[in-house]
C-alpha cells in the first residue's frame, strides 16, 4: 500500500515536471480549462438573472449541483481519468507494450503515467464554485455533510467506471479520441436537478447508468432534499464499476492475445 502511494506520488511528480518544462503552457492550459468549465455555471447564472429558473431550485442550489459535478471531475480527471487518453495514445504509438513489462498491474501503470495536470483547472473551478454556492445557502449540518461525503465518494466510483469503459474502448478502437464525446453526452445529465427530466430519463440516469450520482444525487443530499432513488443509484454505481472492470479486462485480453 505504501509502495503504491509512493509510486503514484512519483507519477504525479514526473507528470508535473513534464508539464512544467513548458512554463507558459502549464499556466495557460490550466486557465483555459478553468474558462471552459466556467461556461455552464455562467449560463445558469444568466438564466436566473433573466428571471427564468430550474423549477424548484434557487440559483445557488443549482450552482451547488454544478459545483459538485465539477468537483467530482476535478478530482477524477487529473488523478485517474488520465488512463483514458493515456491508453488511446499508447495503443496508437505502440508504447502500450512498455506498460506490460513493468511488474505492476497495467491499470495501475495507466493511472500512474496518466496524471493530467491540465485538469487541475477543473479542480480549482470546482472548489471555487462549490464554496461560492455554499456560502449563499443555509450551512448544512454534520449529518448532511457525512451523507454527502459518502455519496461524493460514490460519484468518484462512477467516474472510475467511466474511465474503465473509455480506456477499454481505447484499447480496441485505435486512436479514437471521440470516446470522450460518448462520456460527456451522457455525463452532462448529472449536472441538472433530475426533476427537470422525464421519468424515463430519471430512471436511466439513476438506476442504469448512474450519472445522476456525478452531481445531482450528492448535492441534493447536502441541500437536505435527498433525491428519489438515492439508494438505487448507490447500488447501480457499484454494479456499474464491476461491469466496467469486466469490460476493461475483456478488452485487455483481446489486446494481448492479438497484439497491438
Amino acid at each position, binding site marked *: 500500500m505504501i509502495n503504491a502511494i509512493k509510486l503514484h506520488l512519483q507519477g504525479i511528480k514526473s507528470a508535473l515536471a513534464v508539464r512544467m518544462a513548458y512554463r507558459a503552457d502549464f499556466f495557460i492550459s490550466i486557465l483555459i480549462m478553468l474558462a471552459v468549465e466556467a461556461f455552464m455555471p455562467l449560463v445558469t447564472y444568466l438564466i436566473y438573472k433573466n428571471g427564468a429558473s430550474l423549477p424548484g431550485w434557487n440559483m445557488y442550489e443549482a450552482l451547488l449541483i454544478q459545483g459538485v459535478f465539477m468537483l467530482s471531475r476535478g478530482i477524477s480527471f487529473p488523478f485517474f481519468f488520465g488512463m483514458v487518453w493515456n491508453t488511446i495514445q499508447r495503443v496508437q504509438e505502440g508504447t502500450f507494450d*512498455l506498460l506490460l513489462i513493468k*511488474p505492476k498491474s497495467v491499470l495501475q501503470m495507466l493511472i500512474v503515467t496518466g496524471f493530467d495536470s491540465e485538469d487541475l483547472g477543473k479542480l480549482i473551478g470546482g472548489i471555487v464554485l462549490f464554496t461560492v454556492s455554499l456560502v449563499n445557502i443555509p450551512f448544512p449540518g454534520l449529518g448532511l455533510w457525512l451523507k454527502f461525503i459518502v455519496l461524493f465518494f460514490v460519484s468518484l466510483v462512477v467516474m472510475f467506471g467511466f474511465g474503465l469503459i473509455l480506456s477499454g474502448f481505447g484499447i480496441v478502437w485505435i486512436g479514437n479520441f471521440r470516446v470522450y464525446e460518448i462520456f460527456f453526452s451522457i455525463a452532462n445529465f448529472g449536472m441538472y436537478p433530475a426533476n427537470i427530466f422525464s421519468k424515463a430519463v430519471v430512471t436511466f440516469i439513476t438506476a442504469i447508468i448512474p450519472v445522476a450520482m456525478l452531481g445531482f444525487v450528492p448535492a441534493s443530499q447536502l441541500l437536505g432534499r435527498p433525491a428519489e432513488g438515492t439508494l438505487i443509484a448507490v447500488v447501480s454505481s457499484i454494479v456499474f464499476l464491476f461491469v466496467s472492470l469486466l469490460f476493461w479486462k475483456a478488452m485487455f485480453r483481446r489486446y494481448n*492475445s492479438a*497484439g497491438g
Partner: protein
Amino acid sequence: MIINVENLVKTFKSYERGNTLKEVAVSLFVRKTKLVEAVKGISFSIDKGELVGFLGPNGAGKSTTLKVLTGILFPTSGKVDILGYTPWKDRKKYVARIGAVFGQKSQLLWDIPPLDAFNLNKAIYSIPDSNFNKKLNYMVELLGVENLVKKPTRLLSLGERMKCEFIMAMLHSPEIVFLDEPTIGLDVIAKEKIREFILEMNKQGVTFILTTHDLGDIEQLAKRVIVINHGEMIFDNTIDALKSHLGTKKLVSITTQAPIPPLEIPGVLVKNKLSDYNAELELDVNIMELNQFIDYINKNSTINDMTLQELPIEEVIKKLYTI
C-alpha cells in the same frame, strides 16, 4: 537452463481491406479475415549467462517471439518457461526479473531528464535507495553519461538517449535482458560503447537476447545465433558454424604474370574478372582444396599476388534469408 521454449505457435487474425475505394467501402461492412501464422512452432533453450542473437528478415516473426517471451503477448499454443515462470501467466512476478530495451520505443520521458524517469522506475520496481544509487552510479560511469542524466531527454542525441535507455532497463538488476534492435540508427562510436556495456554486463552474469539487423552486433556480441524466417527456426548454432553453414567458401583475389588459365572448374565461381591477369572468385574448399587450386594456377601461369578472405557474414545471411 533458464529459458525453455517448446513448440511456440502464434497465429494472428488479420483483416483484408483491399486497395480500391470500392473494396475499402465494402470492407467497412464485410471484412474478410485471414489467419497469419507469425510463429510456427519454435523450440529452443538458453542457459544462464548466454548472449544469443536473433536474426531474421523483417516480418520473420522475431518481434512476435520476443513479445511472447516478455509476457506482452499470449501465444496460440506452446510452452514457455523462463526463470520458472510462464511469462503471460505470472506476468507481474516474471517481469520484475527481466529487462527490455526497444530501439524504436523509448521508456524515457521526452520532456524531463532521464534521472526523473529513473526515479519513476525506482518506485515501480520498489528498488531500495542504496541499491538504486550504487547501480545508477556504476552504469552512469560505465557508459560515460555523467553530464547527461540531468538534461531534458529531448536535448540528448540518439546515442546518448540509447545509453540512458539501457540504464533505465537495468536499474532493477534484471537477470535476463531482451534487446530489440538496440543499436538502430547509432553512429560507430555510440555502437561501440553500447556493445562494450552489453559485454561487461554479460560478463557479470546477465543473460542477453538480442534481435538486430546489424551484423556487427552479432559478430561482436553473440556467441550463439538463432535465425528465424517465415516463422520457423532455420538455424541455431555458434557464429562460426553460421559462417561455414553454406559450405566452406572463401573469397580469393589473384593477380598473375601470364593470363589466368580457364576457371570453369568445379569448386570455383568467378565473381569478378577484372582482366586476363586479375580476378576475384569464390572457392569452395570442400570441392577443391586450396593447394590444389594454387597448383592449378601456377602450372599454367604464376601467381604474383593473392589474398584470401572468409566469405563475409552478410553473404551467408543473404543466402539464409532467401531459402
